[in-house]
């Protein structure tokens, strides 16, 4: 059995899916991000002044790109895997000799592709508003790849447990969005009182946003090593959980 063909098939299916509905998957992030730039960058940002030694618009660009990557990686896998469960076409894979790691890798890979593609689109849109500088391209690439993998895995676990379409919107609404907004996208956590700085350090998105911002601007509220260690820890943990759930057939097999 050639696992690479199976992996490629799942990946192709996933990419075909979000490309087929590009108006729903690729256009909204571009519009949303333009509004963020207009409101927070131009209108409010001009009154805020500098943050971390950069004008506010330049400061928030990496966070906004990362926000789009996180949301799209997560929602792609959550909605795709759940609708495969709902339409029962997930059985196409379950009856085939596809190892569980290939199923996980295929869906996560699909989520990463959408997250990264949306990230690129948002980056291009942001060029209309601000000159983007690059401090370390490899840090940018590593952060975006690892972060998209983390949230794609999160979306997969959400979809495995989900019993209805409501269940795949609860986590993004009540957990993901607050964590993203409190993850240092719009501010430096060094501005917070000590207590809230400590609380912020329990938010994994802080590490992702800061590592990503370091790649662009060369500034970060957290150490880069800690940031990558946290992201890798989450990837390993979520991958192990996803594999265990699929192996046991939770939500998939009676």
């Amino acid at each position, binding site marked *: *059995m050639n696992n690479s063909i199976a992996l490629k098939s*799942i990946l192709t*299916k996933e990419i075909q899916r979000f490309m087929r509905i590009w108006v729903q998957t690729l256009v909204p992030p571009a519009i949303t991000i333009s509004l963020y730039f207009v409101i927070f960058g131009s209108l409010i940002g001009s009154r805020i002044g500098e943050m971390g030694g950069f004008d506010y618009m330049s400061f928030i660009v990496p966070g906004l790109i990362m926000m789009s990557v996180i949301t799209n990686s997560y929602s792609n896998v959550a909605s795709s895997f759940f609708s495969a469960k709902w339409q029962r*076409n997930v059985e*196409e894979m379950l009856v085939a000799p596809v190892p569980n790691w290939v199923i996980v890798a295929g869906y996560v890979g699909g989520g990463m592709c959408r997250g990264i593609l949306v990230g690129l689109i948002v980056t291009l849109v942001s060029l209309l508003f601000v000159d983007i500088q690059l401090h370390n391209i490899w840090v940018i690439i590593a952060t975006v790849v690892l972060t998209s993998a983390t949230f794609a895995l999160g979306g997969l676990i959400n979809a495995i447990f989900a019993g209805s379409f409501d269940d795949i919107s609860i986590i993004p609404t009540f957990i993901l969005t607050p964590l993203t907004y409190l993850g240092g996208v719009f501010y430096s956590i060094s501005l917070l009182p000590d207590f809230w700085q400590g609380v912020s350090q329990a938010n994994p998105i802080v590490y992702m946003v800061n590592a990503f911002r370091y790649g662009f601007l060369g500034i970060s509220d957290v150490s880069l090593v800690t940031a990558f260690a946290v992201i890798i820890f989450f990837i390993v943990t979520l991958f192990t959980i996803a594999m265990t759930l699929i192996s046991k057939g939770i939500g998939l*097999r009676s």
Partner: protein
Amino acid sequence: MTYALEISALAKTYKGGFQALKGIDLTVEKGDFFALLGPNGAGKSTTIGVITSLVNKTDGQVKVFGYDIDTDLEKAKSFIGLVPQEFNFSQFEPLMHILVNQAGYYGVPKPLAIERAEKYLKQLELWDKRDEPARALSGGMKRRLMIARALMHEPQMLILDEPTAGVDIELRRSMWGFLRELNMQGITIILTTHYLEEAEMLCRNIAIIDGGEIVEDTSMKKLLAQLDVETFVFDIKVAATVAELEQFVEQSQEITYRVIDDHTLEIDLNKSQNLNQVFEQLNVANIEVQSMRNKSNRLEALFVSLINKKSSATKSKSQSAAVGAN
């Protein structure tokens, strides 16, 4: 001997305690055309679910072409093509994508997958629809799409769970022809169906499952040989009056006739009688027969009697248990 399918002591209890399978044993030989019949909720789909790993078994052993699903699941899966009862493909994907991706899950390279997709879509008369999303297909077309999908990795064993449910008779017959051809190519076919005529026409061996237990496992020939009485319908060429026919029926010896109308007679024939006797009697009475047909589906009669036998046995068992308890 290696069987296409070997099931021993297979049991499944669902959450909530419902015992869908109570330790069934079943073997299907390579190249067989096998019917697995039973009333709704008998355990057919659970059995298929366990074989194809969509349902976790509680106990027992399943081997597919000698490969145990507990130890060689991926190898076992590679032999099986499944046509499930419910439509389970993405309604939004075009047919070509569905088929090529499915082949990919079995490791079939894309160029070969495209070739096979074309072959099966043409054979199943879906080629014109290849770029359309699956939701645009009619019910019968969707059933054929599931057959094409199950064949994309050219399996050794095809399991069809009510493949002709809701399909019109013309299409059903063309599907039967297609399945027969596949079987002649050496593919083992396991079929569940509610159309007992379908099982009788296609299958060589049969198992009947009821209440999670196998109540019959034999060849179709042997099963049908258990039939004591068959009913034939005779269409009379020159219309006689009902009174004339009734007079003939009254005078007839040994054979039981019934007058349905002035053109139709029904005859019950047991194993000790034969049709020659019937024709002799009709000839003597100058009744000319236009055509003749077997009235009821023979397998249906047996199926009902087997299921009834089992349910009365269960009833009497529980009654005696109740008496014992008193």
